[in-house]
């Protein structure tokens, strides 16, 4: 049987990751908007927490949520006038398409691919999210992409 890490009380996850997630959001959004994004990130995490099956990729999971919140906050002002190209192509944002396509990848590669190509994170940030480093993040993303290419899924 596969060993799994039990889901810890949310308080310990929050205490362990709040500062680095906050710094990540400040880098993406600037100090002021990062405050709203911070609260939204952890509220979304709380909403999703009961659906987690294990605690093996909690940090990457939190970064994915934070990255999506940052994208949502960026998009908000533009929402009144959506770009024309979105009407002819798949109307879902890139990260949503990617998350779907990458579903079958191993967890680390999946997180790396989604964070890199879906959210445009730097490899340094992805390394932090995965609890490894820039080099490992780059490798995980590229082997994920290779795997997807084999299945003829084009990543642009």
């Amino acid at each position, binding site marked *: 049987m596969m060993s799994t890490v039990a*889901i*810890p*009380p*949310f*308080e*310990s996850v*929050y205490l362990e990751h*709040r*500062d680095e997630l*906050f*710094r990540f959001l*400040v880098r993406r959004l600037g100090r002021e908007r990062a*405050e709203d994004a*911070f*609260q939204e990130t*952890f*509220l979304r995490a*709380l*909403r999703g*927490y*009961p659906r987690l099956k294990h605690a093996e990729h909690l940090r990457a999971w939190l970064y994915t949520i934070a990255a999506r919140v940052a994208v949502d906050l960026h998009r908000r002002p533009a929402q009144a006038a959506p770009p024309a190209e979105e009407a002819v192509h798949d109307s879902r944002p890139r990260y949503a398409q990617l998350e779907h396509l990458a579903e079958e990848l191993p967890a680390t590669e999946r997180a790396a691919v989604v964070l890199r190509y879906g959210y445009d994170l730097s490899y340094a940030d992805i390394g932090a999210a995965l609890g490894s480093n820039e080099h490992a993040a780059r490798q995980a993303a590229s082997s994920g992409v290779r795997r997807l290419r084999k299945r003829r899924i084009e990543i642009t």
Partner: protein
Amino acid sequence: MTVSPELDARFREAAAAEGLLDVAYEIADSPIGPLLLAASGRGLCRISFDPEPERELERLSRAFGARVLRSSRPLDPARRQLDEYFEGGRQEFELDVDVERLTPFNRRVLEQLARVPYGALTTYGTLAREAGRPRAARAVGTVMNRNPIPIVLPCHRVVGSTGSLVGYAGGLKRKEQLLRFEGALAV
């Protein structure tokens, strides 16, 4: 750069206000030492002496769900009433308690326990009888020992048939302090 106390407090309050927590908890000061207070959606579910938060949070998480977060607002009524109790201004608590996950016998005993008035004493045997199992004094002792909400469910008012204090999960010294404080023991 770290999360400011204001931002931290804002998140903790929003999490509780949106009903996203399985358990909210807070540490409160009291004359008998710091108390960890915890509430589920149903009501107060835990008061713990000498709180070692880490172990306590694991226990709460297993029992009620993993969304356990320190958040003071949901504990405000309990904290206020405990303050009043320790100041001598309150003899009865008006708080919802969550004893849902305990066994029926446990709950029956705790219901009887909740009726023992301020400043009075009862015995394990009496409580057993009142809970419908007159021979279960020892089992009542176990229920008292594992009482999840001491002080509010006043297991400190339960003594042996000879009047000896017997035991207290929070330590005999605290039991004595509480009883002296309520005037049930000569000072």
